[in-house]
């Protein structure tokens, strides 16, 4: 789960990191009231999960109640790279002397935790990596050893932080490591970490990604509001235990296994189509899961045809076939279904589908031929893939494979 800035700062506070005082606001009136309590100047900040808020006009300093109202009015409802601003963070302004960067994440290849610190903060760190990789000091941390204040002092010195910021920065890094480890975060990033004009080191932004797999030992996570831009269908899919990600195309995709689902998206794209979604029904799906998956995809108005790509292992193809028929009974599915089934109990599955002899279900022998068929059926604009409204039928059999 990705936290927005204020949630990240609140998470940091649990571990004793020094963040400036602030309050959330969902309306102009709430923003004004928060600013009055905090005192001026304040910063009005859009709370969306996307970088480049400042450039887009989503971060403004206000010196009076009137300015707070003006900025809050402008920023609420603003669309920043497809993310609509619904919440603001009103924060006491900080006088900045210097901006730095600090983070902890996992170095997959080294199988160790990695601290990164740079004296070049406040800008896109990926850009710094490209322009001047030496500007970032790195420290690998073995989880069996953890960090010490001394190693962190050496790190901030290596990064070239100003001398008067070094002790404060090292202490913040020690707390940030605790937050990263005990807080089960995949990423904790402070950009910028600032030295104030009066010599304090403060956390001015927070980027935190929590490891969903660790939720069982963090009951407090249930209190964190999900402000992500996941749509209704993603919510519906999640509630049914399905891995669904909405996309913009017209070919609905159902596959078992993340790799096969991704691959199906790619193959649809290669034959000239575009997938409407990524949907993994998982390694142990039964007919009920399959029916749920069809139901979720059926709520997407962009879908013209549904491509079901299953390689049975633990998943039994006959279960998938029964699930499709059950879904057709249960819900009004208007799209045609192109079906590719291989693996466990595939013969039984073919028999079940053939028995039904539905024109709505078209079987194809391979992943590639199924993708071609689906893309062809999705192809004609304005013509939903319905039985009876088809143009030329797709290539049958595996002749070209």
């Amino acid at each position: 789960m990705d936290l927005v800035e204020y949630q990240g700062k609140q998470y940091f506070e649990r571990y004793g990191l020094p963040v400036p005082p602030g309050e959330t606001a969902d309306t102009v009136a709430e923003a004004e009231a928060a600013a009055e309590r905090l005192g001026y100047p304040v910063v009005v900040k859009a709370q969306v999960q996307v970088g480049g808020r400042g450039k887009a006009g989503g971060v403004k300093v206000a010196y009076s109640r009137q300015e707070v109202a003006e900025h809050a009015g402008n920023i609420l409802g603003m669309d920043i790279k497809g993310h609509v601003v619904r919440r603001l963070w009103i924060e006491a302004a900080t006088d900045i002397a210097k901006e730095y960067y600090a983070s902890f994440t996992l170095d997959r290849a080294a199988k160790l935790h990695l601290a990164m610190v740079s004296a070049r903060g406040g800008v896109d760190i990926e850009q710094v990596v490209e322009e001047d990789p030496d500007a970032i000091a790195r420290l690998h941390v073995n989880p069996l050893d953890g960090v010490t204040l001394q190693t962190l002092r050496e790190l901030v010195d290596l990064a070239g932080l100003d001398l008067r910021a070094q002790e404060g920065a090292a202490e913040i890094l020690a707390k940030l490591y605790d937050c990263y480890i005990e807080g089960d975060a995949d990423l904790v990033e402070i950009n910028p970490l600032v030295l104030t004009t009066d010599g304090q080191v403060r956390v001015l932004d927070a980027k935190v990604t929590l490891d969903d797999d660790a939720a069982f030992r963090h009951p407090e996570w249930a209190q964190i509001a999900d402000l992500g831009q996941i749509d209704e269908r993603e919510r519906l899919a999640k509630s049914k235990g399905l891995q669904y990600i909405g996309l913009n195309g017209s070919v609905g995709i159902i596959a078992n296994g993340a790799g096969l689902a991704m691959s199906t998206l790619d193959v649809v794209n290669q034959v000239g189509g575009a997938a409407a979604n990524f949907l993994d029904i998982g390694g142990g799906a039964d007919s009920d899961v399959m029916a749920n998956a069809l139901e979720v995809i059926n709520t997407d108005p962009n879908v013209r045809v549904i491509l079901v790509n299953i390689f049975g292992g633990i998943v039994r193809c006959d279960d998938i076939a029964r699930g499709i028929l059950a879904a057709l009974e249960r819900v009004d599915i208007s799209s045609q279904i192109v079906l590719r089934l291989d693996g466990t109990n595939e013969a039984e599955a073919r028999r079940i589908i053939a028995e039904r002899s539905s024109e709505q279900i078209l079987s194809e022998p391979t992943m590639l031929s199924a993708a071609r068929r689906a893309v062809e059926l999705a192809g004609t604009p304005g013509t939903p893939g319905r039985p009876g409204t088809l143009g030329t039928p797709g290539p049958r059999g595996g002749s070209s494979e």
Partner: protein
Amino acid sequence: MSIFVDENTRVVVQGLTGSQGRFHGLRNRDYGTKVVAGVTPGKGGQDVDGIPIFDSVAEAVVATGADASFIAVPPRGAPMAILDAAEAGIRLVVCITEHIPAKDEALVNARLRRDFPRTRLIGPNCPGLISPGKCNIGITSGDIALPGGPVGIVSRSGTLTYQALHELSQQSVGQTTCVGIGGDPVPGTSFVDVLAAFQDDPETRAVMMIGEIGGDGEERAADFIASSMDKPVVAYIAGVTAPEGRKMGHAGAIVSGSRGTAKAKMEALAAAGVLVAKNPTEAGELMVGLVRKL
């Protein structure tokens, strides 16, 4: 020959009394794998379809001579189960468990490296490995694999592993060993580890590698292939059309900014002399063509 396992491998299933462990453990035995023991703390003395259950891996090793472990326990117990196996002297641990917290995986890997350097962990969150006709540990269907080689397969994804086996077996091209390294950010065994083993295995004459978006395991594999392999490699990478910033099912499959894209991985592999396929079917065709010329 085969890598990591063979017909003499003796397997203990940790969690054999659970539904997953029972289903897959017995399936592995039906395939011909020597499944000699099960472990469930507190259930020692019982048996599952004739396979004796022990309270600890150490007891199972003493009683049965098990040298490989198949871990089918839930995410909260899996990290301890891995270390229990390593402590008992097990040299190969295959963990299929999905959704283990990343911090626990990092800790387990650090413990293995420091205290049990001779233990190899495959997974977590993987389909396991199969050496057709000899040994099957994990959830792969034995009937889609074909014994006799000459192809070694290494893959990050489960169903794409099955797809790869299927593409080759249908064309009568057999496999030496097929290893699913798993879709998590920190796999115990990497592409490079498996490629190195295939390079050293005289029966493996070509390697098929199935990667996906996220991380830099494929790029490291490309470096290794260029510097240390003379066997031909065919690769397929899933996720060309995956959107940035979204985890595509697997914890490790995510494109962050310019990092981890399928395109970058395909380019790195092509530059290392690997035949890079656009889809799994093409990967199968390229490999079949290649094997027929060997």
